[in-house]
């Protein structure tokens, strides 16, 4: 493989991985608080359509991103209300969120099908960083939303592992009853991080409709929200590993896309299956390892917290 092709594939891995990364980071924060949200796909779709609609209306992609955050956050708020306040089944509520989000995005998006976005996110170079041989073209020839993740990932890592709010977050996800007895508001923290998760998923969706493939198509996330949920398990709820995992997925996506250019004569349908098979494979491997090393999910993940029952 020539060096140019390798660079192209690695650079594409980053852009293809970025929407998954945003969604996965959101789900990491949500699950850290002990709430499982399977509605990522729905939140991403709502983010994609609201981002696209606002970017068209205002001609400013950043306002689109803002709208996507609000859209994803509002979706997550429904989930938070149902699962935190009403203690509803988290799996079913998440599925409902995906079904609702699919419908809502199709409903809003109907009048936007086939319209190209005039002002989308375009690659920008970052001075000397972009001139570094090999690494520059891979990491620093992207749009601003990619650069945001370079800052966001270490920030979230620091937040989770090195700060007081991060400690509270982990305590709530691990053992809400004892966090509560120490005066940490379980309900408030869960609301905050579920909504934050939705906002990040919303940006992930907007990345698809405003940067990766600047247009709106029904169901354009094509399962990336679910891949993000799977990735969180692979990442063992750690933002740095989520970044690494997202780029692997992005790379597989990119390979499928480029394979025909590289002379691989496999029908494109099979290449498109790769990320889904890879997700299953990764889940099996991770689960085996987790069983051996006893690396587990947040202790209270998926369980409602009822103050009167502690």
């Amino acid at each position: 493989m020539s060096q140019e092709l390798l660079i192209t594939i690695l650079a594409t891995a980053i852009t293809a991985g970025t929407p998954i990364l945003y969604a996965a980071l959101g789900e990491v924060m949500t699950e850290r608080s002990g709430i499982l949200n399977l509605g990522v796909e729905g939140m991403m779709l709502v983010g994609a359509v609201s981002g696209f609609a606002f970017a068209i209306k205002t001609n400013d992609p950043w306002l689109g991103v803002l709208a996507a955050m609000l859209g994803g956050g509002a979706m997550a708020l429904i989930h938070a209300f149902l699962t935190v306040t009403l203690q509803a089944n988290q799996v079913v509520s998440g599925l409902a969120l995906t079904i609702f989000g699919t419908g809502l995005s199709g409903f809003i998006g109907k009048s936007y099908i086939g319209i190209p976005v005039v002002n989308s996110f375009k690659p920008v170079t970052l001075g000397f960083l972009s001139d570094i041989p090999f690494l520059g073209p891979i990491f620093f020839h992207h749009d601003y939303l990619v650069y945001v993740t370079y800052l966001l990932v270490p920030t979230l890592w620091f937040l989770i592992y090195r700060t007081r709010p991060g400690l509270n977050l982990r305590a709530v996800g691990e053992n809400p009853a004892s966090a509560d007895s120490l005066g940490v508001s379980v309900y408030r923290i869960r609301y905050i991080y579920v909504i934050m998760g939705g906002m990040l998923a919303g940006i992930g969706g907007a990345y698809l409709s405003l940067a990766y493939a600047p247009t709106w198509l029904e169901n354009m996330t094509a399962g990336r929200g679910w891949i993000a949920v799977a990735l969180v398990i692979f990442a063992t709820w750690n933002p740095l590993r989520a970044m690494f995992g997202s780029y692997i997925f992005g790379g597989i996506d990119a390979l499928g896309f480029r394979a025909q250019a590289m002379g691989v004569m496999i029908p494109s349908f099979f290449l498109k299956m790769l990320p889904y098979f890879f997700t299953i494979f990764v889940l099996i491997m991770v689960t085996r390892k987790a069983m051996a090393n006893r690396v587990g999910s947040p202790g209270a993940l998926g369980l409602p917290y009822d103050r009167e029952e502690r």
Partner: protein
Amino acid sequence: MIKLERRSAPSLAGMILIPLTAIFLALITGAIFLYINGLTSPKGITWGQVFAVYFGMLEGAVGSSYGLSETIVKAIPLMLCGLGVSIAFRMQLWNIGAEGQFHMGAFGAAWVALNFSHLPAYVMLPLMVLAGIICGGIWGLLPGIPRAYLGVNETITTLMLNYVAILWVNYLVFGPWKDPQGMNFPLSKPFEPSAILPTLGNSRVHFGLVFALVIAVFLWFALRQSRWGYEVTVIGESSRAASYAGMNITKNILMVMFLSGAMAGLAGMAEVSAIAQRMQQGISPGYGYTAIIVAWLGKLNPFAILFVSFLLGALQVGGYSVQSSGVPAAIVFMIQGALLFFILGGEIFNRYKIVYRGKTKMEV
């Protein structure tokens, strides 16, 4: 002051009132979105027009014998997939792969129909049923194996296989199975008459309805009377208690995942044979996903599932019937999602009683 008090058992009134209220609120939600959506049109919209849309949906779904038969036609795959999903849910297995299992069932049946076209109907149809059941069942079993032996999260693996199955069907209808006389549409050759499931009377309602009714009755008895039904219920409530009691959880997971997929596969067989009468792209408008709602709304009770399928079938037919007046068909999915939200939210009234208390003095 308002206070929640835990109930020992759900009240009968709640079990009837909650679903009715949820349906009402979901329709109101849909109406609000229709109204907001209408405001962006040049002429704006009145609430009267919103209700006219709903009236049009009702009219389209049950207002004529044609509408009614279309509603039943849409309800059949929902019934079969919903019954399949419900037995997995009973064991706390979140099989959300009915969509893929449906596609694989349709694939299996179509493979038989296209490759053995000379067979007479009385051999052909049973073979197609068998192929649909086996292919759907295997597609359910595949994620069941890592779940049973390693505890791999089945929610995600079943869902990933949906995309794989849909891509597989698309590969066939765009590639090797494409009908040369199909004007370049992604369709297979039409099936021979011997491969087409008979209809009931003069309508499009087909024999799949009989499959669904028989399976529902059978499941109802099996869950109530058989040892298998007892084990499924116990494992669903507490797998730890079940393993103490010496039940084989691994075997039960594999069996339930196979059966769950097999029913969705049978739905795929019936749809491809009776309705499409050939393999084609987009053979399911999301039956497998709607089945999740069907199973949950039906509280995993086989007969309730039949009834809920009819309701959601009517919603789908109604949604299509108003599409011509510019209402996006996606509103059907929206109302379905909202319905599930309200049911979930309403369940708190089953678990808790709301008690009003005057300002009581703090005693003791």
